[in-house]
C-alpha cells in the first residue's frame, strides 16, 4: 500500500472511530467514555470479582469486540500468527503500572482524546504528561531499548485470548448471575449501551485498528522518532470527528455532549499535576510495551501472547488500583494513588534502563 493510501485509510478509520465513540455515549455509555480501554478492562475485572468497587463492574462487550474484530480480520488476511516469549513478565508489570497511571488520570490515551473532544480541559494536562512520557520512552528506544525477540508458538496459543473473549461474552449473555454488576444509578458501571451495539462497535473499531495499525502512543512516538505522520493522523481524526459528532449531539439532543471547562467534567478530577503524572506514567510504559492499551488488545487478537499478557497485567493493575485505593475519583487522586504513580515511574525507569544498557547479560 502506498503512503498516500495508508494515510487516507487511517484518516477515514479515525473519523469512523470518533463517530462510533461519540454515538456510544448517545446509546448509553458514560459521558466522554464511548471507549476507554483502561476503564472497560477495569469494569470487566470488577464484573469477574477481581475487585469489589461496586460502582465499576460490568463486562464491557466493546473489549470483546475489539479483540474479536482484530482476530477475524487477521484470520481473513492470513495475518494471524501465534507469537510470544519477549519478556512476558516484564510486560505484565508494565501493564500493571500503565493501568495505575491511567486510573490516576481516569482514562486511557483513547479516552484522553475523547475527553478533549467533550471539552474536558483537564485532559490537556494529561496530554502534556503523555507527550513527556513518550519522550522519555523515545530516549531509551534511540539508545537500543529492547525486550528481545518473540518466537513462534503453537497455533492454539495464538487463538486462546480470542476464545477467552467468547467465553466472557457467553457468561455475559447466558450466565449473568455469576457476575457482579453495578446497580442502576450506582456509578459508571451501570451506564452502558445495549450489548449488541457495544459488541458491534468493538468489532468495527477492532477491525479498523487492525487494518490501519492505529495506536495512540505510536502517533506521537513516530512523529518524534522518525518525523513520520501516519499514525498521528488517526489520533487527530478521532479527535476532530468525535468533537464534531459531540457538537451535533449537543445541539440536537437535550443531553450534554460538549462542555468546555476544567470543573464539573464527568468521571474526571481537576488536579492538574496528577493528571499530568498519571499520563506520563502511561505514555512512558506504553512506549516500552510497543503500543497503547488499544493496540495491545488488537495485537492480542492477532495472536501475540505478549500483548495478551500485557492486557492481563492491565486488568491486574485495575484490580490492585481498586483493592488498594489507588484509583482517583471525581473528588481527586488518593494518597495511595500518588505513592503508586511515583513508584510506577521509578519501576518503569528501572525497566527501561536495565533493558537498554545491560544487554550483554542475555
Amino acid at each position, binding site marked *: 500500500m502506498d503512503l498516500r493510501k495508508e494515510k487516507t485509510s487511517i484518516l477515514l478509520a479515525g473519523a469512523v472511530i470518533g463517530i462510533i465513540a461519540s454515538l456510544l455515549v448517545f446509546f448509553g455509555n458514560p459521558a466522554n467514555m464511548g471507549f476507554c480501554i483502561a476503564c472497560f478492562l477495569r469494569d470487566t475485572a470488577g464484573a469477574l470479582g477481581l475487585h469489589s468497587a461496586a460502582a465499576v463492574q460490568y463486562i464491557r462487550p466493546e473489549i470483546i469486540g475489539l479483540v474479536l474484530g482484530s482476530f477475524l480480520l487477521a484470520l481473513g488476511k492470513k495475518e494471524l500468527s501465534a507469537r510470544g516469549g519477549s519478556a512476558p513478565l516484564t510486560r505484565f508489570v508494565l501493564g500493571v503500572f500503565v493501568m495505575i497511571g491511567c486510573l490516576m488520570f481516569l482514562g486511557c490515551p483513547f479516552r484522553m482524546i475523547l475527553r478533549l473532544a467533550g471539552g474536558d480541559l483537564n485532559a490537556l494536562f494529561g496530554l502534556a504528561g503523555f507527550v513527556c512520557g513518550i519522550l522519555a520512552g523515545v530516549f531509551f528506544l534511540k539508545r537500543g531499548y529492547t525486550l528481545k525477540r518473540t518466537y513462534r508458538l503453537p497455533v492454539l496459543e495464538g487463538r486462546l485470548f480470542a476464545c477467552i473473549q467468547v467465553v466472557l461474552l457467553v457468561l455475559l449473555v447466558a450466565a449473568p448471575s455469576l457476575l457482579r454488576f453495578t446497580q442502576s444509578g450506582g456509578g459508571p458501571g451501570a451506564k452502558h449501551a445495549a450489548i449488541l451495539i457495544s459488541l458491534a462497535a468493538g468489532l468495527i473499531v477492532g477491525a479498523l485498528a487492525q487494518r490501519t495499525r492505529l495506536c495512540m502512543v505510536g502517533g506521537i512516538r513516530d512523529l518524534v522518532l522518525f518525523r513520520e505522520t501516519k499514525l498521528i493522523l488517526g489520533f487527530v481524526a478521532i479527535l476532530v470527528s468525535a468533537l464534531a459528532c459531540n457538537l451535533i449531539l449537543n445541539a440536537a439532543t437535550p443531553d450534554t455532549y460538549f462542555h468546555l471547562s476544567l470543573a464539573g467534567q464527568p468521571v474526571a478530577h481537576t488536579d492538574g499535576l496528577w493528571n499530568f503524572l498519571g499520563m506520563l506514567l502511561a505514555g512512558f510504559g506504553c512506549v516500552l510495551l*510497543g503500543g497503547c492499551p488499544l493496540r495491545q488488545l488488537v495485537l492480542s487478537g492477532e495472536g501475540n501472547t505478549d500483548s495478551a499478557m500485557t492486557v492481563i497485567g492491565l486488568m491486574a493493575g485495575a484490580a490492585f488500583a481498586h483493592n488498594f485505593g489507588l484509583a482517583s475519583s471525581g473528588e481527586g487522586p488518593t494518597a495511595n494513588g500518588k505513592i503508586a504513580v511515583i513508584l510506577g515511574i521509578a519501576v518503569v525507569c528501572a525497566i527501561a534502563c536495565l533493558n537498554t544498557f545491560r544487554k550483554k547479560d542475555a
Partner: protein
Amino acid sequence: MKTLDARGLSCPEPVVLLRNAMAAGEQAYQILVDNPASRENVTRYAEHQGYHVTCTEQDGEYTLSIVK
C-alpha cells in the same frame, strides 16, 4: 550490503535498527522482519529516506532489500 535481523522485535524497533544503521552511512541494506506491520513500517521509513525497497516473502518472513 549490511544485513539486519529484526525478526520478532516489537514496534518500532525494526525501524530504529534501520535508522541507526543508516546513520552509520551504508548504501544498501537487507532487513529481515516477520510481520506485515514491521514490513510496512520499514518500507515507509526507507522510502521516506529516498531508498528503493523490494520485498520477498517466504513462510511468513519478509526479506526487504533497501538500496539508494
